[in-house]
């Protein structure tokens, strides 16, 4: 008889794997990615490819250089690259997109210990870094269905000034508006988000509390139509479904997720209504990322039967 395997129980394991979860996220992002190519043209596909390949390569080489275990197969770098791409304007210079992707994977994720150990969302932090470093190109938005890179104001910027120039709600739902590549098509994002909830990859609590908070605050601030535009504008749907639900950087328990969503909603609304930036989703999520360890600590329940002392 061959040598028998010795191991701690349990000796059967569930079917879920890390790469399976990441694959689900990629599948859920396909509608938004496809929409970005349809709306903004082939260049969107190019940006996506650059971001994903840079993310994967930089993760591989970072793990090689630091002599850590090669974990590129878990597909998490692919998710980071794809998410970052969808957060960029289609006109972004390719070298900037690549640099952002490298920053996300190496600085924000790898240097903090790799998958699961980073405290801030890599794609979001990279986007903020790029907003500061490349303000011009990062805010140069493109009118949908045009080949020329003509700058166009996003609905959020318009909401802050002359509301008569707003695109119709139908266009907001379909994503025919200026904005980052992957954030505009609400229908595609909702399909992806519902898929992730249905697959049990994310909990409905975070997106519902986040989007709900923004909607209610906007309703109070500017009425029904304003609130609808607020929900469909900017990166709210992309952020609420795909970034505020990141495992490593957001709370683990339902109550924590509720607090996280509420906090994100309040910060987003505050920045949008009162800040000098038209958009606040990235900052809101990053700020809430920072207090996530505390939320996790506050929401830790008493074990069943555990004495309180």
């Amino acid at each position, binding site marked *: 008889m061959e040598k028998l395997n010795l191991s701690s129980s349990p000796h059967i394991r*569930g079917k*879920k794997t890390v790469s399976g979860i990441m694959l689900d996220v990629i599948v859920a992002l396909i509608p938004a990615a496809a929409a970005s190519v349809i709306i903004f043209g082939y260049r969107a596909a190019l940006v996506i490819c650059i971001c994903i390949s840079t993310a994967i390569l930089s993760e591989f080489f970072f793990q090689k250089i630091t002599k850590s275990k090669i974990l590129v197969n878990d597909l998490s770098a692919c998710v980071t690259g794809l998410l970052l791409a969808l957060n960029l304007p289609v006109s972004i210079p390719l070298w900037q997109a690549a640099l952002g992707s490298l920053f996300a994977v190496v600085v924000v994720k790898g240097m903090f210990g790799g998958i699961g150990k980073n405290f801030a969302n890599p794609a979001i932090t990279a986007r903020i870094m790029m907003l500061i470093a490349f303000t011009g190109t990062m805010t140069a938005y493109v009118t949908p269905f045009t080949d020329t890179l003509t700058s166009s104001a996003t609905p959020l910027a318009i909401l802050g000034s002359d509301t008569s120039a707003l695109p119709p709600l139908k266009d907001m739902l379909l994503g025919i508006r200026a904005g980052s590549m992957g954030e505009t098509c609400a229908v595609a994002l909702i399909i992806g988000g519902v898929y992730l909830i249905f697959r049990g990859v994310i909990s409905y609590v975070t997106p519902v509390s986040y989007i709900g908070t923004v909607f209610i605050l906007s309703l109070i601030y500017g009425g029904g139509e304003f609130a609808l535009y607020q929900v469909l504008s900017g990166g709210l749907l992309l952020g609420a479904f795909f970034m505020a639900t990141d495992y490593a950087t957001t709370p683990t328990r339902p109550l924590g997720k509720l607090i996280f969503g509420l906090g994100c909603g309040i910060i987003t609304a505050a920045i949008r209504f009162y800040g000098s930036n038209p958009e606040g989703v990235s900052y809101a999520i990053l700020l809430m990322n920072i207090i996530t360890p505390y939320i996790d600590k506050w929401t830790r329940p008493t074990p069943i039967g555990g004495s309180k002392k």
Partner: protein
Amino acid sequence: MAFLRMPGIKVPHRKHTAAMAPIRIPAPEEVCIPLSMHIGAPAVPTVKINDKVKVGQVIAQAGNGLSVPVHASVSGTVKRFEEMNTASNKTVTAVVIQSDGLMELSEDIAVPDVTDLESFVDAVKQAGIVGLGGAAFPTWVKLNIKDASKVEEIVLNGAECEPYITSDTRTFFDRGDELVYGVETLIKYYSPKKVIIAIENNKQEAIKTARKLFAGNDKVFVQVLPSVYPQGGEKVLIYSATKKIVPEGKLPIDVGVIAINVTTVAAIARYLKTGQPLTEKCVTVDGSAVKEPKNLIVPIGTRIRDVIENAGGYKCDPAKIIMGGPMMGHTMPDENHPVMKGTNAIIALDGRDGAVPEETPCINCGSCIQRCPLRLDPPGFGKAYEMKNPEELEKLKVNLCMECGVCAYVCPAKRHLVQRNRLAKNMLREYKAKEGKNGKA
């Protein structure tokens, strides 16, 4: 009481052997009977090498306190005393008996004289009975309740939530008379308000059988529980059946409950009716490397090798042999380990099922935290353990972990969470012991 959920998980059932009546195997050539097959002090041997023994004869007396006697399970000659490592990695002495193949019953076997609670508890002790669901806690200690009026409910554990295992289910089918007698005896000495027979809903035949067995008894209720692992864990079962929570550091009796495994009750009944102590065990033999999965009744002390042989041997080279179920059982380094009192299954897995998954970093998905039946924090244990921080472990209540395996089962990163929980529990135990010595506690 706050709203509580006992989340748990769905595990594959794989109860292939539920319909197979157990077969009593012929006496093996030799048996190896450990003197500590229970939690507590080892039994003290009363036989010498070359002594002739018969089935049911005491070969070791109960040690002090938490202990039970041990009986010969075959007739034959005491060959030697052997030091061995048990499944739970304790070094114990075992008595090796060479069988004469006759299975002659000992003359000492006599129906015990049970007249009151005290003599009943003593009989359970003399029968050498321990918790047969796997925990192997001396049953007489559990039943040794000075004030029987404290007992409100007796919960019979027939949940059998581990995959593969059907030996408790078989008790309903094959030992119905003993089960009824055992329950009636318990009612007689403890007069509980009710007796709850808890069975998971994936065992419809067992539920039907139990209902038929106790049709005439208005104190006995068959309660159907969802088949959610770990439904048969003592605290989980008590909560599911009575909605009572056993607090940390307390026993079920502190909330008025006795929880006892169905096969244990049948074993008590057998001793009361016939005087036969616990010398054999129904064991489910299954797994992808076993040629003919079946239930076998084997003398306690039968080595794995002999048990598997009676199930047709191996289909292919086994990669892993497990004593107990796949969720909580222990892996064996070889086939020498004997069946003990608490053994209810031997599972042999092929290369695919028996592979040990490679561990990857925690992605903080929270699956373990959301599924832990006791709402514990396995990643928190791991971090505190790696930081060598027993104070944090105490705060996180690692001591409550029952090692059910749910956290590791659901982990997508295939982390060895139970292993780390065990190490963390040990660290806390050592820290407490040291603290106690320094007089700080």
